[in-house]
């Protein structure tokens, strides 16, 4: 059983993930917003209690909105988010009953727990990027040119042919296996400097295997454009 402090961090981390998922949708479909957030109450004497109360009200508001949305449109995403919100609400209640005052409870996490937090954060953002990628139409001329350039650059300068290179209108994704960390580092430097992409932003999901090899999934956007806003955890 994780410690109280650790669970606090993990659950609050979930809130951070949820809030971060938002940046992805902030630029579009604002008219689709159906949730309402309770107005903040007057400041409490204790700033910590005030923040806690605000978060609790926000979570309850989100739960109500989520229930309304999911009643007519069931989805696995909603179910997962509902579970996270329920866990978060329970944890906030627990914090409210307790006396946890640590300024930085993250410091108590073990390395494995930190890895789990980082994995959760990455999973959320990769899912968002993949959704975005799938939603983009394919600009055949641009995509074919950039795919070819990425493939040939990696083959020539890294010595490995990527497992997958796919581009759409502005997003590309590259799946690659690396023999070690050094090879992964070289790949990363080369793939973000493919000339046809110009200035690039990239986000990586990586898996280290028992034999020391590494697999990466990289989403790239070029021409000085930006990836969607990133989850904070």
């Amino acid at each position, binding site marked *: 059983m994780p410690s109280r402090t650790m669970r606090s961090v993990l659950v609050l981390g979930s*809130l*951070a993930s*949820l*809030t*971060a*998922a*938002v*940046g*992805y*949708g*902030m630029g*579009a*479909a*604002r008219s*689709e*917003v*159906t*949730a309402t957030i309770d107005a*903040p109450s007057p400041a409490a004497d204790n700033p910590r209690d*005030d*923040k806690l109360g*605000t*978060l609790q009200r*926000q979570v309850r*508001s*989100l739960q109500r909105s*989520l229930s309304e*949305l999911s009643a007519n*449109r069931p*989805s696995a*995403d909603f179910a997962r*988010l509902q579970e996270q919100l329920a866990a978060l609400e329970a944890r906030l209640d627990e914090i409210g009953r307790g006396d946890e005052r640590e300024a*930085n409870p*993250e410091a108590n996490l073990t390395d494995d727990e*930190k890895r789990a*937090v*980082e994995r959760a*954060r*990455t999973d959320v953002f990769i899912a968002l990027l993949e*959704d975005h990628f799938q*939603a983009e139409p394919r600009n055949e001329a641009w995509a074919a040119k950039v795919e070819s350039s990425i493939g040939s650059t990696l083959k020539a300068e890294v010595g490995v042919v990527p497992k997958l290179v796919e581009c759409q209108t502005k997003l590309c994704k590259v799946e690659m296996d690396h023999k070690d*960390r050094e090879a992964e580092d070289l790949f*990363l*430097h080369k793939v*973000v*400097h493919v000339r046809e992409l*110009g*200035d*690039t*932003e*990239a*986000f*990586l999901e*990586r898996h280290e295997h028992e034999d020391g090899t590494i697999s990466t999934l990289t989403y790239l956007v070029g021409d000085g454009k*930006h990836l969607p*806003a*990133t*989850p*904070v*955890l």
Partner: protein
Amino acid sequence: MNRNLLRLSLGGAFAALLLAGAASLSPASAEDGKIYPSAFCAGALVGNPPIVSFSSDALTNNSTTNSAVVVCPTIKDDVFSAAGLNEAKLHYCKAGAPGFLVDLRSHTSFGTSVAVSSKSDFLGAGCRTFTWGALPGVSEGFYTFMVVIPPSIDGVATKSKLISYRIDEN
């Protein structure tokens, strides 16, 4: 309504939470940038005289044939923040067309890269500035600049050099 639109609807709801949360949990946004002289950077001093020379004002590539690769550290002043960088800049000069390349990388506490934002300049001689916007961060992670300084060119007064860089976390 398709799945993506549903997600955007939900995203809107969370946007409100994000804004409210930010208001309740974070201090007011403020400039908190740190500027680092290029002497912070580390790299191989290859050759005799060395390809790369450090001075108080710049890190210069003296080679007329080889690019120099240096890594420039930063100090994360909010250790547990995962909010990432707001902005970064890097001031440099270059002697000619060969590319001045920079990767701004966000690392986990275990050293692995999670995000990279690259800039490159293939223009002619001159002193210019790269500017980055937001970059994701990780609690207890760190940021580095990986800089490829192109060769200098005989007869060109401007040598290729890295002058300084900065990041702003808030």
